[in-house]
Each structure stands twice: as C-alpha cells, then as structure tokens.
C-alpha cells in the first residue's frame, strides 16, 4: 500500500483513529508520519519517536473507543482508582489495578512491551509460595474432574500430591 500523503513511498505506519464515533484509517510512510504533528500526538506507539507514556496512552485509549464515560463503572477494589483515573494520570493506583482493569490494560502493556509474559526473576520467598498455590489450585480442579469421571485411582494420587504440596506450603510460610 502506498502512503496516503505523498503517494510515493510504501506505507508502513497504520493508524486507526476514532473521533466522535467515526473511524478513520490513515496509512503513511515513515517520513510523512514523522512530519505529521497530529500523528505524533495520537499515534499509539513507535519506538522510533521519542514520546511520553501519556501520549502513548492517550492515543491508545482513543483507539479503544474514546469516551471517558465508558470506564466509569470500573473501580479497583483495593485503592478505589478507576480506569478513567489511570487514563488521566498515566499511573495505576496499586498492584491490584492490573487485574481490576485487566481487559483494558493488557492491550496497552502488549503495545508497550510487545509481550505480556514475565520471564525474568521470581521473588525467592513469595514467588515460591505463589507457584505452590497455583499448582494446588490446578490439582484440585483435576481432582474434581477425576471424581466426576469416577477415576478413583487417579483421584487418590492427586489427593496425595495436593496434601504433599499443602504441607510444603505450610513449611514455606514457617508454620
């Protein structure tokens, strides 16, 4: 596709803007995109252009559909911040906000980092505990299924494994 502005170079910047409910698509080459001021403000992310996170966020929220009132009902149960607050400040209120606004935050995170899976360090103490809890939860669900299917031999094995992990969880927490 050719750039809509100069009609000469290949368009490799694609922008979808929603203003007052009207969707506009814009396809530009790198150069025209850089020159265009209104894109610099609204274009969600391009690591080639220095811009603040607020700019990225503004552009992205606009892409999501714009009107502030859409987010009013979502409140973080811990810090009471709303998604709209986050939109204005560019900062979340607490760790719980990430799951409270998960649906809207996840695409933003993916835009910023190109990824949504942490592969780095795990906190030594709490990380181990978190993993154990998650494993226990998973085994309990498997146990339920096994019992429903009347696979009692498998269920017994699962039960033993859950007991073992729960005792391990107890030791980890110093109980």
């Amino acid at each position, binding site marked *: 596709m050719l750039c809509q502005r100069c009609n000469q170079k290949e368009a490799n910047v694609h922008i979808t803007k929603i203003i007052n409910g009207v969707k506009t698509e814009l396809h530009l080459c790198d150069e025209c995109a850089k020159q265009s001021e209104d894109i610099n403000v609204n274009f969600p992310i391009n*690591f080639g252009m220095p811009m603040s996170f607020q700019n990225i966020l503004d552009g992205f929220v606009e892409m999501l559909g714009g009107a502030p009132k859409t987010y009013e009902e979502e409140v973080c149960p811990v810090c009471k911040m709303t998604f709209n607050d986050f939109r204005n400040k560019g900062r979340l*209120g607490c760790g*719980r906000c990430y799951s409270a606004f998960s649906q809207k935050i996840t695409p933003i995170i993916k835009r910023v980092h190109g990824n949504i899976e*942490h592969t780095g360090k795990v906190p*030594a103490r709490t990380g181990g505990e978190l993993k154990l809890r998650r494993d226990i939860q998973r085994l309990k669900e498997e146990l339920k299924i096994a019992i429903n299917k009347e696979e009692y031999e498998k269920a017994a094995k699962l039960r033993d494994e859950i007991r073992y992990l729960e005792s391990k969880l107890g030791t980890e927490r110093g109980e």
Partner: protein
Amino acid sequence: MAWFFSKSSDEGIVLTSRIRLARNIDGVPFPHILDKDSAKKVVEDVTSAILDSNSAISKDFDVINLKDITLNERMSLVEKHLISKDLINRSDISAVMINKQKNVSIMINEEDHIRLQVIYPGFKLKEAYELASKIDDLIEERITYSYDTRLGYLTSCPTNVGTGLRASVMLHLPALTITKNINNIINTINQVGLTIRGLYGEGSNALGNVYQISNQITLGLSEEEIINNLIAVTNKIVEKEKKAREMLLEKQSVELEDELYRALGILKYARSISTQESLELISKVRMGVEMGIIKDVNVDKLNELFVNVQPATLQLLEKRDLSPKDRDIVRARLIREKLN
C-alpha cells in the same frame, strides 16, 4: 562520589553502569495516592528490612528523609545520580538509603515504593545487577512484593512492569558528536528497543557529549537478556567512538589540536564560566587526554569536575548559596585550582 572518581576503563568511553529495580509492596497503594501515615509506614518497613537484616550490607546504609535536608543537598544528590527529581517532588513522604561507598541508593516512595539503584564506574553492568539483585532478595525476606506470576513485578507505570529493571550506561562520545555520526546511532538505537538521550541538558542537545542509553522494554525479556542486549549495543558504540577518534587522529589536523588546547586554556584561566560552557570544554579536554593529544592533565580530575561544576554541588562545596553570577565566578575558580 566514589563512582565517578575511579580510574577510567574502556578508554574512558563508558563512564558508568547503572541498574535500577522498581518494586512495590503488596496491598499498599502506590506513592502518588498514598496518605502520609501509610507512606511513613512504607519508609519504616523498607528501612528496617535492610537495617534489621543480618546481612553485612545492612551496616553500610544511612537513611535520609528528604524533608530533613536542604533543597541544595537534594539537588546535589540528583547531580550525583543518587536520587531522581521525582523523589524530590515527593519530599514530604520520600526517603533514601545510601551506602558508605555511595554506589547503592534505595529510594523510598518515588514513583514506586522502592527504587533500588546500583551505580558502578566503568562498564560493569553484570556486577551492578548482581549486587542489586542481592539487596533485592534481602528486602524481599521481610517485605511481600506486589508480584503477579504472569506480569511479574507490578509497578505504578505499566512501562516498568515485568522485571522492573532499567539498565543504563553513561557514555562519553565526543568524537562521534564532532563527526556528526551520533545521529545515525540515535536512530539505530531507537529501533532495537533501547533509548538514548543526552545526560545533561534537554532533548537531543547533549551537554558535555555525555549520553545515557537504557532499555525501554521491561516485560517479556529476562534481566540477563536485557543486560546482554545493552552490553552488545554499548560495545558497538564504543567501537564506533574509537574509530571516530582514530580518524580524527589520522587527519593530524592542527585545527583539532588547537580546539582542544584552547578548551584547556579557557578552563585554566577563565574568571567566570557557566555550567554549560564548562561541561563542553571539560569534555573536549578529556577527549584530548584520552587520545594522547593533551599530555599533562589527569583524567580523574576532569571526571571530578564533571560533577562538581554543577550548580547544587558547587554551592555545597562552597558551603553557601550563590547567585547565578557568583556561581560562574566560583566555578571558574574551582576549575582553575583543580587544573593549575
């Protein structure tokens, strides 16, 4: 100021290596919406996690509540890269723990509850991360971090989520700047998920030819991958700076020699000089020394001047507040005394 005073390595191109980890306490709102009492408790909890631990490290740290020190003292800590301006903006609730060697600082109630920073002279990113991670573990023995198995360490701004790691190097790139090759480098770096900016001054106008390069992506890559990427890119840039210096030397131009010696001349004899001009000239002389053009100036003295000519540090050294005009006079005197 230990980190700036040590002997130069990598021909002085990599000035410092810095690691910063962002961490938050589980269940506690982030500093920007935290009430004063809860903020005070965060400071108490973090400081005691370090001070009450059985580790040998714990005895090294001093705790400074930002509200207890003068504006000048705060700004001087910024000039020495031990705290951020953001920490100053929250002086009513923020604190910092700084070790005796002045290469570790733990900022409390900055944008996140904890911003742990290790800064080393020269090119030592891995060593800096090792120490930071060790102190991180020490804090985590007592404090439950806000951590998600999928997203990693949760931070106030989603741009830091995941590893919470910002790794950076400070580079002195006078030859690349003089030969205008720096613009290509800036463009390339932005394409590989890193950012580059001038350390002093605004925007791309890098005073003293000092640049900072850091990772932009914190999620999806491990700490090791982030650091290795930065090391690889830094090595390439150091190589390019060396090449640019060789090219300058090959030309054997009188103009270059003249420019560098004039810089030294002004520094040695000026009676009034601004921060900006002094940084520019110190940078030139430093390059001249490293290229063997200027022979009788000690690089360590120049490194020290890079920090000491800045306004807040200058006033602290002089032990009084100075008007901008007096500052320029005192600065010129300080430089003369150092270089003559």
